[in-house]
């Protein structure tokens, strides 16, 4: 166990330079690129005093190096500044915290869909290697990835919400009083915790299409990963041995082979987290899902510079954190992974 602890500590220490680079990158994107943030915020024709005031509020009138040091200092204290619009002076961190649960709920549901679809198709594809089914599923994994996720969402909305009228088109709940009392911020979980059947049904209805959209989009990658890992495992001796012992084929595939193919798939899922977040931003936009992605896009429209910067930094933190956690889980499951 000592070596595991060493691994975890090393891994955490390695995350720091990576975060530092990302955070620096965001800083320079927001300041050094030709687009002047203040010009981006202010609509043409604003009085000069107002421009100067905004510039001063954002600290953009100070030398770049001073700004950079301040920015890093604020980040260490988790201070992401205050908003400019639509309401001035709110804490950016608070805004992000408010929207995060919606994104989390969507992402978790999407991962569920993607795993179910991806793992099942991946196993089938590997088991029936070089059959028509295999080629069909491989084509599926290519095609589903090239379908723009927001368009997939629009098409599902069109079919299931507009034409068939089965599911709602937009949002997380019909009306705000349908939302459960906030405990975790995940409506489905909160509804169950507060035993609010009505809001559980309502929030599930709203969750189905966005989760399906994002889940199917990710499922192609999962199909591929599961397929190639299953191919490796199916070739190994213990599978032949299991078959020789007369174990039912279904049990060989799902209990013996898949269990061993699953660990690499799990890490890969961690690596797909960035893809998931990018997909979530677009899916949220399609379904007017009030999450982080929606917030980011909305605040770009409002030209709310501090929130845009804060949201991007927040995404960077999230990605680093998830990859850290996945690596640690992987190391815990597989004792060969050590420094």
């Amino acid at each position: 166990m000592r070596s595991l602890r060493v691994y975890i500590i090393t891994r955490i220490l390695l995350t720091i330079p990576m975060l530092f680079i990302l955070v620096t990158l965001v800083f320079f994107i927001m300041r050094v690129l030709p687009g002047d943030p203040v010009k981006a915020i202010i609509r043409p024709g604003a009085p000069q005093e107002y421009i100067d005031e905004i510039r001063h509020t954002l600290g953009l009138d100070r030398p770049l190096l001073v700004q950079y040091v301040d920015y890093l200092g604020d980040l260490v204290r988790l201070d992401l500044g205050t908003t400019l619009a639509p309401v001035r002076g709110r804490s950016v961190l608070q805004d992000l915290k408010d929207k995060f649960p919606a994104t989390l709920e969507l992402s978790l549901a999407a991962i569920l869909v993607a795993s179910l679809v991806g793992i099942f198709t991946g196993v089938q594809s590997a088991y029936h290697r070089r059959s028509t089914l295999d080629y069909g599923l491989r084509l599926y994994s290519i095609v589903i990835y090239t379908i723009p996720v927001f368009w997939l969402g629009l098409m599902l909305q069109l079919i299931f919400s507009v034409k068939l009228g089965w599911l709602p088109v937009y949002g997380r709940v019909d009306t705000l009083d349908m939302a459960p009392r906030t405990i975790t911020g995940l409506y489905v979980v909160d509804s169950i915790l507060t035993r609010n059947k009505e809001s559980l049904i309502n929030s599930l209805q709203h969750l189905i299409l966005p989760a399906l959209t994002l889940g199917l989009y990710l499922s192609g990658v999962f199909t591929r990963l599961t397929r190639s890992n299953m191919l490796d495992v199916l070739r190994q001796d213990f599978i032949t041995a299991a078959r020789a012992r007369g174990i039912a084929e279904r049990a060989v595939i799902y209990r013996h082979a898949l269990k061993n193919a699953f660990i690499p798939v799990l890490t890969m899922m961690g690596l797909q987290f960035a893809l998931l977040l990018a997909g979530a931003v677009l899916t949220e936009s399609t379904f007017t899902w009030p999450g982080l992605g929606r917030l980011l896009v909305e605040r770009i429209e409002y030209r709310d510079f501090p929130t845009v910067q804060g949201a991007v930094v927040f995404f960077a933190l999230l990605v680093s954190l998830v990859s850290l956690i996945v690596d640690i889980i992987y190391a815990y499951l597989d004792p060969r992974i050590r420094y």
Partner: protein
Amino acid sequence: MAEQTLTLEQPWEDVGLLRRIWRGRRWYGAEWYITVAGGVLLTLILLMTFLAPVLAPFDPIKTVGGRFTPPGGGKQWLIAEAENEAIQRPEDLAGRKVGVLPDTTGEVLAEELGAEVVYYPSMLKAFQGLTRRRPEVEALIVEPEAAGNFMKTYGRFVRQVGPPFGPTFVLGTDNLGRDILSRIIWGARSVLLVAILSALFSSVVGVPLGLLSGFWGGKLDRVLSLVMDSIYSFPGLILAIAMAAMLGPGVLNIAVAIAVVYIPTYFRIVRGQTLSVKEELYVEAARSLGARARTILWLYVFPNVIPSIVVLFSLNVADSILTEAGLSFLGLGLPPPTPDWGFDLNKGKAYLPNGYWWPITFPGLMITLVALSFSLLGEGLGEILNPRLTES
């Protein structure tokens, strides 16, 4: 005799390129079909791009018909008073007063024919305008469905002039009465321009950095790798969103915003390949012959990396198309009214609850097809050019 054998067994080099590709299907199997499917699809799309001015029936940025004309619609009926003999053809409308409903194809046609346009809020009002004792207008231009009902009820007082006339919008029109087919065809230009430009930017930066980093190693390699890995781990779209938001709209700006995201992909692959090629015997031989580092890098290492770059480029263009579409869907793409599939989807989305399916169906289909063609090409070529990577 010897001459005959030669003609029978045609040397490989004498076979034309197309026939060589055709023969390839025998030993590449499924990958060959994937590659060729991608290639054929891509050729068709490129053809469409170049022939846009010929193929597009209408100006993509002009209002040419009514709002939300359904696919196949657009033809209009010309209705005149029964006794009015002056109007026999649509051309007779020039200079006369013609009644239309606002935001319909009739409005556009009446203006094109040089008629004086009178707007009516409803069919009933239009009919009254035509059939009063002192008529306000001499004719009406109306949509077929409305005209059908109209004729059934008031056939005694009015007559229909000639067959339906006017344009046909194969894929319908959008919220501004622009032809969707034309916008789709012209949209291919803007999307491909941005995607290919951005892929060029990424490769031009990523490939040399990868070569240098892999070849020289040391501190430079460690720093570059760390930076590239950090960018690589970050969700590309979000990085592109931040950059596009700061740079503002424009082809070059969007291309740069997308390009930054893909530099690390080139860097990683090229660096990895350089590392392995560097250890090959022929590189050592060249070195022992006294070849300079630059020569080795350029003549021995780089050519071996080219196949991977080709594959990567193709996949990169596919990804760039999707990222561009995503950016424009979020309203961060090309400035309107440039035909842009993602932006058209963004606009069409607002009218989805009204059941207008055509403005959001066709642009998305195009994005998928174009991205798919590059993706298939890249996937297939990848397995053909790098058989070692294939998991049998």
